[in-house]
């Protein structure tokens, strides 16, 4: 490396030739005819909608991962001048003229192309020969599945790029460690490792596993340094701090910055608002903010409020009542109190309004000055339209017999006295005298007589004659010690009630709220909420025609049809290079068997290969087999719909292992065999390139010939 600095011309020229050639070939293979097909291909339909939302600055939540990958795709759209106007609803739909297809697909394709030189350099840094490195790069170059995945607006190639970049920078850093620590390039590669890791995690959570792998390797290397008696304690601590800074603090900061940019870019309210809390929604432009703008902040006696359940699952809903009563007997013969129904209703409605009343006073208006409600105060909640009191008593709830029924009390049953006092408990209070605040306070209502807590339950359908649609059950939960969001409510709309007369009050309830106070959430509060929602939001587990299980991937028993030409038989499939996949598997098995053999022999003090070679062999395996394992094995415990493309990061690591094993075995292999094997890789690449690039269109007979495995789903157009 120092020679490199003294003699830049000679040394760089040679390396560059290899690298340049590989880069050019990579670029050609990935960028050739990029705007074809001029139609939505597979998951472009999914990521495209987010690109459009970025262009329009509309807020969204995507549970598939953090926002950095989406932002990169959107950057492509931004550079291409995309205005976001396209309806992403169907795979195969033609792109209209305003969609800059080329530039949308450019970034993933570039990332995919750059993986080729990265693979080359990783092998060089692992101290294998340039020949092996060339082999690795060529294998990546001719891998059909990686090509297909890179050529469209998808995230895997970007993820793989950052993963490889992180591995390469760590290796460069580690190799520099021996001669020149704390030098400029040492810092550069160390910091780049951290940055690339955080980018990988920012694109998809899968990147986390490679990050952990690199952290583990760095930890191991540092552990070896601790044992080095030549290093002083001070320099050890410096080393430790440098690594901590670059590999932990910087990635965390970068990760936060992705969200910061994301939240700064998306400031308008949009379709995913309702999963967020009221406070979050109010921070977006339009939507709830328009309604709640100017509400009074402190809830006072006489306030008119709507109460939203904080859980927001299975849907957002507000505490609601209406004139219907519970049926005297349910279908299964149980009795009810026959009082007015209380539910949690998923739509805005005038019946969602409640008035906070002081039990000791009759008036339903806010006094002047307003008397704010504080934590621990006892209140009554009066339903605005019917002026009945929220009540619960020891009667089984409609759907959950072990909980208490909640009703609005009607005074016609002497045997059942009104029990309508509720204690307000602010969950997120800072002190015990906190004031109940609109939107911000999360409140539990504890029933004074029975200590039951007001809770939104499951769907209920069967006894609502009037309402169509679904509504949620509201119960008084007796076993309320555990904290659960379904027992927590917050005030969403709020105004100070002015009219004492019921008629006037009804008019007032129908009118929109207004006044002026703005509420701003801090970035960290928004980040925490958004991050939590991304992690916990569960889409219905969907079955997909092309979904597969993790076991199918090793042998490539499945494929995914990405696109089919509307008229001809031209089509694009995610289909790997069979020879490469098979040899990657063989390489992994050979590597593991050989390692175990060597390891046991070394334990018995029999050294088959020299120490240096063994070290190289182990570190190469640590990266490649380790990378394969951490990117593959977690899928066995994941409960989500899996696709073949999830395997690609693992596959990349496995491919890197092929030349390593080959070089190790090269003494026993004639080069002719290697050439033959490599030409078969090339041949398979050529054979499948029509379904990789989508052209030329093949005839039915040719398509049938491509179906090497019965489990592959090649689309054949019915004549």
């Amino acid at each position, binding site marked *: 490396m120092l020679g490199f600095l003294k003699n830049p011309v000679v040394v760089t020229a040679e390396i560059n030739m290899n690298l340049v050639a590989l880069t050019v070939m990579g670029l050609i293979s990935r960028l050739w005819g990029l705007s074809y097909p001029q139609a939505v291909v597979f998951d472009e339909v999914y990521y495209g909608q987010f690109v459009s939302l970025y262009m329009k600055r509309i807020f969204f939540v995507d549970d598939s991962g953090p926002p950095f990958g989406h932002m990169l795709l959107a950057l492509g759209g931004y550079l291409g001048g995309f205005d976001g106007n396209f309806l992403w609803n169907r795979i195969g739909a033609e792109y209209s003229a305003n969609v800059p297809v080329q530039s949308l697909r450019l970034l993933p394709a570039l990332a995919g192309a750059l993986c080729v030189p990265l693979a080359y350099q990783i092998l060089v840094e692992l101290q294998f020969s340039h020949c092996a490195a060339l082999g690795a790069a060529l294998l990546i170059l001719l891998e059909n599945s990686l090509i297909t995945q890179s050529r469209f607006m998808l995230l895997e190639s970007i993820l793989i790029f950052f993963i490889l970049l992180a591995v390469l920078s760590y290796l460069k850093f580690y190799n520099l460690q021996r001669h020149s620590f704390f030098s400029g390039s040492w810092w550069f590669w160390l910091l780049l490792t951290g940055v690339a890791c955080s980018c990988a995690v920012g694109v998809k959570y899968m990147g986390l596993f490679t990050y952990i792998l690199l952290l583990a390797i760095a930890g191991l290397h540092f*552990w070896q340094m*601790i*044992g080095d*008696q030549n290093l002083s*304690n001070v320099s050890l601590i410096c080393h430790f701090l440098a690594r901590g800074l670059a590999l932990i603090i910087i990635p965390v900061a970068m990760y936060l910055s992705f969200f910061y940019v994301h939240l700064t870019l998306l400031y308008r309210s949009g379709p995913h608002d309702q999963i967020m809390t009221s406070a979050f929604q109010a921070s977006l432009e339009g939507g709830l903010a328009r309604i709640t703008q100017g509400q009074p902040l402190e809830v006072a006696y006489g306030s008119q409020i709507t109460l939203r359940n904080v*859980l927001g*699952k*299975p849907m957002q809903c507000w505490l609601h009542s209406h004139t219907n009563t519970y049926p005297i007997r349910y279908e299964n013969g149980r009795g009810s109190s026959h009082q007015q129904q209380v539910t949690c209703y998923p739509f805005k409605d005038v019946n969602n309004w409640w008035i906070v009343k002081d039990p000791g006073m009759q008036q339903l208006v806010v006094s002047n000055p307003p008397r704010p409600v504080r934590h621990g105060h006892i209140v009554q909640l009066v339903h605005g339209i019917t002026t009945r009191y929220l009540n619960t008593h020891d009667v089984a709830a409609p*759907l959950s*017999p*072990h909980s208490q029924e909640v009703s609005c009390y009607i005074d016609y049953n002497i045997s059942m006295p009104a029990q309508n006092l509720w204690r307000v408990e602010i969950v997120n209070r800072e002190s015990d005298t906190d004031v109940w605040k609109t939107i911000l306070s999360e409140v539990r209502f504890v029933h004074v007589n029975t200590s039951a807590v007001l*809770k*939104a*339950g*499951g*769907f209920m*359908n*069967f006894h609502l004659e009037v309402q*169509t*649609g*679904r509504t949620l059950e509201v119960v008084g939960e007796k*076993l309320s*010690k*555990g904290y*659960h969001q*379904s027992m927590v409510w917050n005030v969403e709309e709020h105004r100070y009630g002015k009219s004492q007369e019921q008629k006037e009050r009804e008019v007032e309830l129908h009118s929109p709220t207004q006044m002026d106070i703005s509420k701003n959430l801090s970035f960290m509060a928004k980040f925490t909420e958004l991050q939590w929602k991304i992690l916990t939001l569960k889409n*219905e587990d*969907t*079955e*997909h*025609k092309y979904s597969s299980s993790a076991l199918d991937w090793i042998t490539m028993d499945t494929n995914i049809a990405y696109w089919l030409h509307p008229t001809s038989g031209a089509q694009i499939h995610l289909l790997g290079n069979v020879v490469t996949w098979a040899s990657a598997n063989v390489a992994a098995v050979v590597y593991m068997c050989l390692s175990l053999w060597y390891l*046991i022999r070394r*334990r*018995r*003090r029999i050294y088959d290969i020299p120490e240096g070679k063994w070290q190289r062999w182990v570190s190469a395996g640590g990266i490649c087999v380790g990378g394969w394992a951490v990117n593959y094995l977690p899928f066995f*415990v994941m*409960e989500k719909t899996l696709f073949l493309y999830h395997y690609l990061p693992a596959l990349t690591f496995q491919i890197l292992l092929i030349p390593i094993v080959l070089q190790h075995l090269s003494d026993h292999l004639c080069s002719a065999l290697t050439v033959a094997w490599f030409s078969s890789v090339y041949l398979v690449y050529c054979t499948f390139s029509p379904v990789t690039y989508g052209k030329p269109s093949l005839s039915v007979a040719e398509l049938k010939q491509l179906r090497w495995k019965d489990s592959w789903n090649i689309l054949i157009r019915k004549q």
Partner: protein
Amino acid sequence: MRRARPAAAGGGAPRMPAAGGGQAGPGPLRRRRREIRRLPGGPARPAALALVTLLSFASRFHRLPEPPHVCWDETHFGKMGSYYINRTFFFDVHPPLGKMLIGLAGYLSGYDGTFPFQKPGDRYEQHNYVGMRGFCAFLGSCLVPFAYLTVLELSRSLPAALLTAFILIFDTGCITLSQYILLDPILMFFLMGAVLCMVKCNSCADRPFSASWWFWLCLTGVNLAGAMGVKFVGLFVVLLVGLNTICDLWDLLGDLSLSLVMFGKHLLARVLCLILLPLTLYTAMFAVHFTVLNKSGPGDGFFSSAFQSQLIGNNLHNVSIPEYLAYGSVVTMKNLRMAGGYLHSHWHLYPEGIGARQQQVTAYLHKDLNNLWIIKKHDLDTDLSDPSSPVEFVRHGDIIRLEHKETCRNLHSHQHEAPLTRKHFQVTGYGINGTGDSNDFWRIEVVGGKAGKLIKVLRSQVRLTHVATGCILGSSGKTLPKWGWEQVEVTCTPYLKETPNSLWNFEDHINPKLPNISLDVLKPSFAEILLESHMVMIRGNSGLKPKDNEVTSKPWHWPINYQVIWWLNLVTIGLYLLMAVSTAVTLKRGVQLTSELKELSRVVLCGGGQITLGWLLHYLPFFLMGRVLYFHHYFPAMLFSSMLTGITWDTLLKFCARVLSPRITARKVYGGGFLALVLLIIYSFYLFHPLSYGMIGPMASDPSSPMAGLRWMDSWEF
């Protein structure tokens, strides 16, 4: 670590404290003197063990018959004990050993199996339940001496062992869990037994193949089988022992003085005792289970038709039914997935907003009249029950109509989305008195069959294809919400993948016009039964998913409890990690330690390491589990945590005492610290003891058991 151990063992620490406190054995005089100083008095150890055991039994057996009601999960496990006594077949998600032992204890103590165990809070009246409780309490009491001996073996320090024992004796949670008819004391007994035997076996490592070595190794295997046989959580202790064994073997392999033949012997001994022996015992347990339970009972429906034919009293036992399926027959159809239900329908409609508002069709695990369907021709609606009409058999490829016998509606599907699996089509009951539309037509096909072949009852695997949309009738395995009575969803899947989900067989077959023949061919082999019961158990376990809005216990809440002891344990884990890391770094930096400190660091890294591994293995996996979790799942981990507390504080106090130079001060600090900890534990017990003896039982008067379970948890809180 292996090099250090023989020296320490040779230093005079007696290997079996139970056998006697002799400090016999050769060793440097200096070391022996230290041992003597550390362990005051020769007979102290057996006396301590006796004291600990006595206290443990006293705390567990105190007020054992109280309350004379069914408490919490006794309603399940007591009931299952009764099933064994009555020999009726039932299904449970756990392997059978624990319940068999409960049943055995009940049988021996004179319980006759007649108490219904309907719901928590029922009075036992004259039934003899104390035997079963006593058995569980006995096993629960054994935990304390086990933990005591384990810690003593690992740390070679009496105070550490005593501290651990006190924590477990005075922990109200452990006491409560040991006082009722539950699986947990049995599980923990085997679990701690396995750990103790493993540790004992390790300390015999300097004289392999001796009698005591074989004894402890075999006993480890037996305990592993026991732990696995009570609950699948036992798998974690198998993992712990497995990891320990691998480390052990790796050390042996590196020992060049050992020939490969010797190593082979070591390997073989472990394979024999730790793999083959437990497997044999485990299989034997199931053999006993299936032999004992030979009568039909509530668990039949979970198993395949072939299995059911084994059970006395089941309608498939010694079955004789018409062999080939014919039009006009009344049949039940069973889904072929493991624990698949019967095709079922009832008068209730799908609720508003969920597909079309037609009659529900579900899969139901229990036998019921609503599972009966009549096979009809798709185009003919003649009354096939007319005895004069000729019998016509159903053939592969025929288009049929299935009419629900009770409600006279046809099995129907259409392009509405299914209630849970949104990409499938909804299946409903449609039509009035058998008159429907063309969406009621299904093509019946046998797997591997040819057109025109007859369809065999029980043995043919059948696929029903919806003629109009081309989808296949299947059961998704998902549980419907309350409106569907928590039965299993039935859908019509447009994805034509061949899975057991979309295959069915005909089970009952009633047709008076056909001659019955006997079907003995169904008898499954024992291996098949074993495999099937495991599949059913695994499915049952993963089926225990928390429902929406249900308050469940989360693993990260567990170690944080409002009891002093649990806080102590939690703090200790952090403290231990700190100590372990600093010790490891010190050693790695090559700092020269005195022999006493070396011994301390060995205890921290080796002994503490093993225990910490056990704690991690019994705690972390719960974070990955999707099933419903309860607080009591933490107790195995809590055992390890308590042992770690003993070891850590003892080491820490010793270390602190060493730093203070005058002997007297050092001893005072050590003694004072130890006393403070013990007093803290006893004070905590004094504060919380009403929980375990007094107010816990009768409160659980609630009908549904999960709620009663929650209340049990809530009772910890104030």
